[in-house]
């Protein structure tokens, strides 16, 4: 059986991205194996102290994303043969734009803090205390707002878009695609009462107005969501609402 060559970035948090080094491994190439399978096999058989993170293994939890051969990907659902041609080396490193904890494991705290900053939590309109409202809202499945909310709702919070975004790399305050995609689903939720505060929170240089529509987030999203369009929707809503005096 031919060998599969793998290079893995290793390093400690204190060292940062500069303090790390590349470690080389070889293992039997199999017909069917995911990147996560490969990392797991290396950790079990060759490098017991290799740090990485995963949970569900089936593309639901969003914890196993890494940068593989220049692109951020969900490793549990990425087959080796889709990334590297036979004989080509796999190069695996922690997600960009995240602080490294150790090796392939990153600290996702800043990422989720930005969801909070973008007001990514549902604020019930009819019941400010968060309880069940007296009346149910009628949300026709075919309505435009419902469809726009649906388009972004399946985000699993894996951080692939955030790691792929140049604006995040250039401006550490920038909220990033996932947080604003979440905000856009809530702006389109007729049951939500926090629209004005949310639009304020996502506006300006740290928010939607710094997006240059490179669409790398949309290009990389493993769930095929379109955060770039969600951000454009926020810009559009803020522009017309302000111009027409609706906010």
């Amino acid at each position, binding site marked *: 059986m031919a060998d599969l060559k793998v290079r893995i970035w290793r390093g400690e948090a204190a060292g940062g991205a500069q303090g790390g080094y590349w470690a080389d491994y070889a293992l039997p190439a199999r017909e069917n194996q995911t990147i996560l399978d490969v990392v797991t096999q290396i950790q079990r058989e060759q490098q017991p102290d290799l740090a990485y993170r995963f949970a569900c293994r089936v593309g639901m939890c969003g914890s196993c994303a890494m940068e593989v051969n220049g692109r951020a990907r969900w490793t549990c659902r990425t087959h080796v043969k889709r990334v590297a041609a036979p004989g080509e080396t796999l190069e695996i490193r922690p997600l960009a734009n995240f602080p490294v904890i150790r090796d392939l494991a990153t600290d996702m705290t800043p990422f989720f803090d930005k969801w909070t900053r973008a007001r990514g939590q549902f604020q019930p309109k009819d019941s400010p205390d968060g309880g069940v409202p007296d009346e149910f809202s009628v949300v026709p499945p075919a309505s435009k707002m419902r469809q726009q909310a649906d388009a972004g709702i399946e985000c699993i919070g894996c951080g692939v878009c955030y790691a792929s975004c140049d604006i995040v790399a*250039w*401006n550490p305050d920038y909220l990033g695609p996932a947080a604003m995609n979440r905000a856009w689903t809530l702006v389109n939720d007729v049951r939500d009462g926090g629209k004005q505060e949310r639009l*304020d929170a996502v506006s300006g240089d740290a928010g939607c107005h710094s997006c240059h529509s490179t669409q790398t987030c949309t290009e990389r999203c493993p769930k095929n969501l379109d955060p770039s369009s969600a951000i454009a929707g926020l810009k559009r809503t803020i522009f017309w609402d*302000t111009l027409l005096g609706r906010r």
Partner: protein
Amino acid sequence: MRAPGTRLWAIQRLTAAFLGVAVVVHLVTIMLAIRGGLSAAEILERTRGANWWFAFYAAFALCAGLHGTIGLRNIAGEWLGLRGRGVDALWLGIGLLTAAFGIRAAWGLYHA
């Protein structure tokens, strides 16, 4: 529209819409004027005292100055890390100064 950058974004998009049309009008005018072999006297005959012509070029210069400078401001923020209220005020000044140079050139043809 309170967060830094929000208003500048709106100004840049609005000027972009005007510039898109104005640039094409400007280039076509220049091509026709110069390629037709117009002399300076013939050009001045048309621009001198032409109020609409001057208004168009004054607006054009203002939009171009602001649009370009907001772009430079964004690039400087992202690539050089130059950010803040003070830096924004400086860029606004540069934008208006650039526009003033353009309006001076148009004034030269209008008032000559």
